[in-house]
């Protein structure tokens, strides 16, 4: 979310505005984790205590430290240390954002506990195991076959249940419900993970980057124009509502709705309302599309990855949806004897999403220029500086970790680059935790009762018609045209 929505959310604070935005905070936290992980290249394991979860049938074996260096901590000890470390770091962030520290600490404790418990449940063998061989290994006769990334779906469902059946609990947790902060930290870390993945197949990675450009054209020039026309002409929305609505549905959900709302000088309420719809529909998409992709696109994993990036709105839902899709498709392929290298499907989703995000500021400026000069001429004209103001800064963190990770993988001495996957692997464990927190937070923000509120029906109808009648299918067609026949490398 941009600063606009942040200030709307944090209206409870009376102190002067925060000196840092949530966007920049995500960059610094993500870079901090990345730098600490790199200490492993010098033989110093600073992050090996972070908790990781394996598929389990015996709860005592579910948790462990990411590295054997800290094995004496045990699984529960690792969980406790991870919680305390995240609480400390995020509390510093909360202080920088002028949040009520006590309320944040209490809320974050509950959010972490519920989200990570969901993740552990998602790794239960009856939920996660996919192949008959693994069923035999765990001594079970059936499973939901959700893979251990099914924990994301569990976290989302737990969040949804709280939001829709226990709204007072959701209200108490709101200080720590920050899906955009969590996903942006995760995306900064993801840059390094993708660099390590791409380093092994640089030609394939650069080919995929080129094809990411198609996503920009599709989102900004085709989706937007059609959705804006539908909202204005068929549903009779005025310009103030139609522009943020079209941006939310076609570009990148929350961020785009807020950036464009600000650029065309819409009242703050407009993008806030659109954002709440974006989140609800993103949840619906994440609960449906990865499973559709597993059923119909298992032979085309990269098409499925690109489709998630193009069809699912909001960064959090899209990138985490890509992660679920990758897990589901790789598991199905593994059951058929094809073992793809992990990271490529998620990499395509993240690339598509980041490429789209880069242009939010420019598109908002273009619309702002047209609105303030030709539609509603005003003294407060759109300025070039707004492009930078609305640029999603977490992309800088993503590019930095990707560039540094790739340089280290390709140019560092062999003994150092050989340690890179393990180092980034530890950072990646944090990325998974931030994904879980994102899913849980998105669930908490999705109160479906809003769909029954007076006036929402018409907004939801535009969304429903555009998303399920146009965006999803055009996204699939474009993904197929540009990524069809491309497969991730096989695992060695």
């Amino acid at each position, binding site marked *: 979310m941009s600063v606009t929505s942040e200030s709307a959310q944090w209206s409870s604070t009376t102190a002067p505005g925060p000196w840092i935005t949530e966007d920049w905070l995500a960059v610094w936290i993500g870079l901090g984790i990345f730098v600490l992980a790199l200490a492993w290249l010098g033989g110093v394991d600073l992050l090996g205590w972070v908790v990781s979860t394996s598929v389990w049938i015996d709860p005592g074996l579910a948790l462990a430290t990411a590295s054997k260096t800290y094995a004496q901590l045990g699984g529960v000890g690792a969980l406790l240390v991870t919680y305390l470390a995240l609480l400390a770091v995020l509390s510093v962030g909360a202080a920088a954002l002028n949040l009520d520290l006590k309320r944040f600490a209490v809320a974050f404790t509950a959010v972490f506990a519920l989200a990570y418990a969901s993740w552990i449940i998602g790794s239960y063998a009856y939920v996660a195991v996919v192949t008959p061989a693994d069923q035999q290994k765990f001594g079970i006769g059936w499973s939901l076959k959700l893979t251990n990334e099914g924990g994301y779906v569990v976290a989302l469902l737990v969040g949804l249940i709280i939001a829709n059946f226990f*709204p007072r609990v*959701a*209200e108490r947790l*709101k200080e720590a419900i920050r899906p955009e902060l969590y996903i942006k930290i995760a995306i900064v870390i993801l840059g390094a993970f993708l660099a390590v993945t791409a380093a092994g*197949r640089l*030609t*394939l990675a650069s*080919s*995929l980057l*080129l*094809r990411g*450009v*198609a996503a920009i*054209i*599709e989102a*900004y*020039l*085709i989706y*937007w*124009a*059609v959705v*804006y*026309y539908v909202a*204005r*002409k068929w549903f*009779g*929305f*005025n*310009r*103030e*509502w139609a522009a943020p609505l079209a941006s939310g549905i076609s570009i990148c959900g929350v961020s785009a709705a807020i950036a464009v709302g600000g650029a065309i000088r819409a009242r703050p*309420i*407009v993008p*806030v*309302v659109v954002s*709440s719809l974006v989140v609800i529909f993103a949840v619906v998409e994440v609960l449906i599309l990865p499973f559709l992709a597993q059923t119909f696109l298992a032979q085309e994993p990269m098409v499925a990855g690109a489709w998630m990036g193009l069809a699912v709105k909001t960064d959090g839902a899209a990138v985490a949806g890509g992660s679920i899709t990758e897990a589901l498709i790789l598991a199905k392929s593994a059951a058929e004897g094809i073992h793809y290298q992990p990271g490529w499907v998620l990499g395509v989703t993240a690339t598509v999403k980041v490429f789209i995000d880069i242009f939010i500021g420019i598109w908002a400026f273009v619309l702002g220029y*047209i609105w303030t000069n*030709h*539609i509603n001429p005003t003294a407060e004209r759109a300025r070039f500086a707004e492009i930078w103001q609305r640029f999603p800064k977490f992309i800088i963190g993503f590019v930095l970790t990707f560039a540094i990770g790739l340089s280290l993988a390709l140019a560092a001495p062999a003994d150092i680059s050989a340690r890179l996957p393990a180092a980034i692997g530890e950072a990646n464990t944090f990325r998974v935790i931030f994904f879980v927190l994102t899913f849980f937070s998105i669930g908490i*923000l999705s*109160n479906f009762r*809003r769909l029954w*509120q*007076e*006036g*929402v029906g*018409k*907004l939801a109808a535009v969304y429903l018609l555009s998303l399920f009648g146009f965006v999803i299918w055009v996204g699939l067609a*474009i993904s197929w*045209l*540009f990524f069809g*026949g*491309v497969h991730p*490398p096989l695992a060695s």
Partner: protein
Amino acid sequence: MSQPDIGAELKKAGPAEPLLPVEKKLIGWSLGIGLALLVVLLIVNHYLPVSL
């Protein structure tokens, strides 16, 4: 969480506004440029296939 009254907000929006020429141009040019660029990218995609 406190929620805005969307129905009331939408009522404030007033009657439907006809599409202005500048909006029609925006929609038309966006679609035109978008489709043209997609064709260009498809050609690039054809001649520079993904390589492993």
